[in-house]
């Protein structure tokens, strides 16, 4: 009996030991998974990382700006040389102006688009929540309209609109030049203020829908001087190559 009892005790001990081992391993494993996962569960860390990235991004953009300025200086220095070089530099500056690589200023407008603070009420159930927010297509229509009205430079929240600019909704944010932004959107445009405002306020035009939902979503100001920053994104072409005609050499 005593031997039997001992055997029972041993088995009992062994099983509880194994249970303990399993529990401990499971516990450890779960803890590891929780900490190894993407830091979605660790918002403070994520926020810190975000701020850090943003700061380094800003620093890099500042560096780009400085380098571009340096290029300008070098080009000017080069231009002060021969007559030929001067002509070359002039056409270079024009090309850069068209490409949006220079900071520019001039008369224009400031258009502010923001999400409505109104919410769909019971009286107008046909108005969907989508109507109360600014979307990529609103911005696209505005940009298109401004260009059509002769705007010479356009920026959205400090992002210069250039020939390669994309404007696209991704969830609750809009990407312009691959930079995330959200309401309010400040659109700056240089051009004849009267023409620009007229184009935007055309009946049934780009802003008509927004205004009909909530007039407060749209604000237009005419300005004597608008400063529009240079494009600070990449200017590298990865796929397109210029075609050289016979006898002509591309730089």
């Amino acid at each position, binding site marked *: 009996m005593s031997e039997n009892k001992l055997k*029972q005790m041993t088995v*009992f001990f062994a099983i*509880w*030991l194994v*249970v*303990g081992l*399993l529990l401990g*391993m*499971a516990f450890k494993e779960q803890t590891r*998974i929780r900490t190894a996962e993407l830091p979605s569960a660790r918002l403070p860390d994520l926020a810190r990382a975000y701020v850090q990235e943003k700061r380094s991004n800003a620093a890099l953009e500042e560096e780009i700006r400085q380098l571009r300025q340096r290029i300008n200086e070098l080009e000017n220095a080069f231009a002060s040389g021969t007559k030929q070089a001067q002509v070359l530099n002039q056409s270079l500056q024009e090309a850069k102006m068209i490409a949006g690589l220079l900071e520019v200023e001039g008369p224009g407008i400031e258009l502010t688009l923001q999400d409505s603070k109104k919410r769909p009420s019971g009286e107008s159930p046909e108005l969907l929540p989508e109507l109360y927010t600014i979307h990529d297509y609103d911005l696209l229509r505005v940009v298109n309209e401004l260009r059509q009205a002769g705007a010479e430079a356009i920026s959205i929240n400090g992002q210069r609109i250039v020939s390669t600019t994309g404007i696209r909704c991704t969830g609750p944010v809009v990407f312009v030049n691959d930079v995330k932004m959200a309401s309010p959107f400040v659109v700056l445009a240089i051009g004849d203020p009267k023409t620009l405002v007229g184009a935007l306020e055309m009946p049934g035009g780009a802003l008509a829908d927004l205004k009909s939902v909530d007039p407060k979503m749209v604000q237009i100001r005419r300005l004597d001087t608008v400063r529009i920053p240079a494009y600070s994104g990449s200017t590298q072409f990865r796929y397109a190559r210029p075609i050289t005609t016979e006898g002509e050499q591309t730089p």
Partner: protein
Amino acid sequence: MIAVGFVGLLLGVVIASLLLDIPLPEEWAAYLSLAALAGLDTAFGGWRAALEGRFHPDVFVSGFIVNALLAAMLAYLGDRIGVDLFLAAVVTLGGRMFLNLSLIRRYYLNQLALRRQRG
């Protein structure tokens, strides 16, 4: 006997969390947890059986192994066919643990009452 069990449990947890470092694939983590749950259930069952004086080591050990394997297998199968079968194991094992625990509690309360009557 119960004390022996608890020492074992404590020792197991300590060993697993401090000494053992077996890197397991993440997909296994769920099965491991379930196996641990099944083990815990069997251990509670053994405790109850011991109190009732009908503890059989062979039943105990085989129950432990089979339950743990079945629970893990159910979870695996459920993953494969898109049904949360592991819930079946969780509900069954969880329910039985509560049942066993209540019987264990009653046993000790009875003992206490008996001792009071005598004393």
